[in-house]
């Protein structure tokens, strides 16, 4: 198990991570979510020991990663921004190089690389150096390197950036397959909640370096608002009245004559609509939107609703 315990990191006076704790088991896919600057990349880089953190510990199978760098044999990482391969080599040469760098070689590794190379759709680009590949294929080459020696834990920092729809689907399929069949644990940071939704067992949400949520995707979804009601009126309504019209869990924003409410269940809006009807208030605009997961997630972050 990979366990991050009360990790703290700050730059000068600015806190990048504050008491962040979570775990990743073999065969599990965990998403690390958060906006830009939330601490996702800092967390991944800390696990890789590319950053010296201030407090806290990171354990792999109960061994403190600060004690020895041998744990790196168990880690595969695709770091952000296509910075993972030697651009002068082909994808296969890169995979072979990085597997050997971790101390893995031999027929089984070569076979694994061949299989993954084909599965990732890189065969048609076999003779091209990485610098001649498209962004998506560069990302695939990086993934090939990270998976080539079948590490126990794979860290993927924004793996979908710059990828087209088909490549994202391929990536989802490969991650799910490797987690299920090879029992590899994946920690995936992403802004792409659609991508996360299809592959992750658990979600860790960071906001400004703090743990906002850790749990199953279903629990996270249950916490997310499903609807957004927007009403524009000719005259503003008093907040005391508005607050009485809503029950249960909701988030109310009033900007002069525009009222915006996020809520979870359709019947929560009935009292509001009834009030408008009873008082013969004609809205200039009235609309109810079903929130996408991305939008709903944004509302969660805005609320800073701690787990």
């Amino acid at each position, binding site marked *: 198990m990979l366990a991050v315990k009360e990790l703290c990191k700050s730059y000068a006076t600015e806190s990048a991570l504050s008491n962040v704790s979570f775990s990743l088991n073999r065969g599990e896919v965990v998403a690390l979510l958060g906006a830009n600057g939330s601490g996702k990349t800092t967390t991944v880089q800390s696990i*890789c020991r*590319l950053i010296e953190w201030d407090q806290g510990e990171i354990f792999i199978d109960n061994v403190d990663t600060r004690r020895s760098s041998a*744990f*790196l*044999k168990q880690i595969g990482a695709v770091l952000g921004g*296509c910075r*993972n391969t030697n651009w002068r*080599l082909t994808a296969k040469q890169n995979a072979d190089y990085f597997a050997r*760098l971790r101390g893995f070689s031999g027929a089984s590794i070569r076979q694994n690389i061949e299989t993954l190379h084909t599965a990732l759709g890189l065969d048609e680009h076999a003779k091209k150096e990485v610098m001649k590949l498209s962004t998506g294929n560069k990302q695939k080459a990086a993934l090939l390197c990270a998976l080539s020696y079948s590490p126990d834990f794979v860290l993927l920092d924004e793996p979908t950036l710059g990828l087209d729809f088909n490549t994202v689907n391929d990536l989802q399929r490969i991650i799910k397959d490797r987690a299920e069949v090879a029992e590899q644990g994946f920690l995936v940071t992403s802004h792409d909640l659609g991508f996360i939704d299809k592959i992750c067992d658990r979600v860790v949400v960071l906001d400004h370096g703090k743990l906002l949520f850790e749990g199953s995707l279903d629990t996270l979804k249950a916490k997310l608002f499903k609807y957004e009601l927007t009403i524009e009126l000719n005259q503003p309504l008093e907040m005391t009245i508005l607050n009485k019209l809503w029950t249960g869990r909701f988030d109310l924003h009033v900007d002069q004559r525009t009222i915006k409410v996020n809520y979870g269940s359709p019947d929560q809006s009935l009292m509001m609509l009834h009030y408008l009807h009873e008082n013969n208030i004609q809205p200039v605009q009235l609309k109810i939107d079903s929130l996408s997961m991305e939008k709903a997630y944004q509302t969660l972050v805005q609320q800073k609703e701690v787990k």
Partner: protein
Amino acid sequence: MNIHLFVNELRLQWHEMRQYWFETFSSLFFLIGIFLGLFYGIKGFVLEQGDGQSLDGLVLGFLLWTFATGAYGSVTKSLIEDTQKGYIEQLFLCPNGFISLMLCRSLSENLVGLVMLTIIAYIVMAITGNWLTINFAYFYGILLLAAPSLVGFGLMISGLALLFKRVETVGAMLNLAFMGLVALDGLPLNIFTFLPFVPGASLARDVVLDQSALRLDYLLIVIANSLVYLTIGIYMFRAFEKQAKKRNLIGQY
């Protein structure tokens, strides 16, 4: 030092040299071109003075300088280029440690460098007609023993590169400074002995040009010089690496 890492680095070099054969050959011809320009530039002047020994010294000095810049650059060039090529972070994920990796890379580059040096030496001697009687076993042995001082020096500069990134100007200046280093006489013990690579270059000159017997005390000075610079280099690189990791500077360029 790890044999698997070393073999891996040799394979990497082979792949790069084979795939970029034009670059490999053009750099070889470039070095030979520089030397020929230098050689014929001063030949007339030297012959006027009837000092044939100076031309031999020039040939050997050039070979020593080529080796010295290669040995120093095996670490610094690697760190700077790999940062630009974009995979330096992945190299820091080496379970044996980044320094072990760099030492293996350096050894493999130096060995390949010696092969290139032999080719250059014969081409240069054939073109110029200045044939040196080189005992290559001694010559290479001395160079390999002296190389760690330059690798250590390279690690110091690489450590600075981790923090300050743009150190190419320092590197360019050092390449020129190496011309002076390989020309200085560091044996017997004097103030120049304490400069990196100077005792090694001096011993190589003694053995190759003067056909002197290899002295154990001189050899020990070369080894001590290498060990001191390599140790300081490793220590300084670790200190800079720690700072770079604290400030999240690894890989940023």
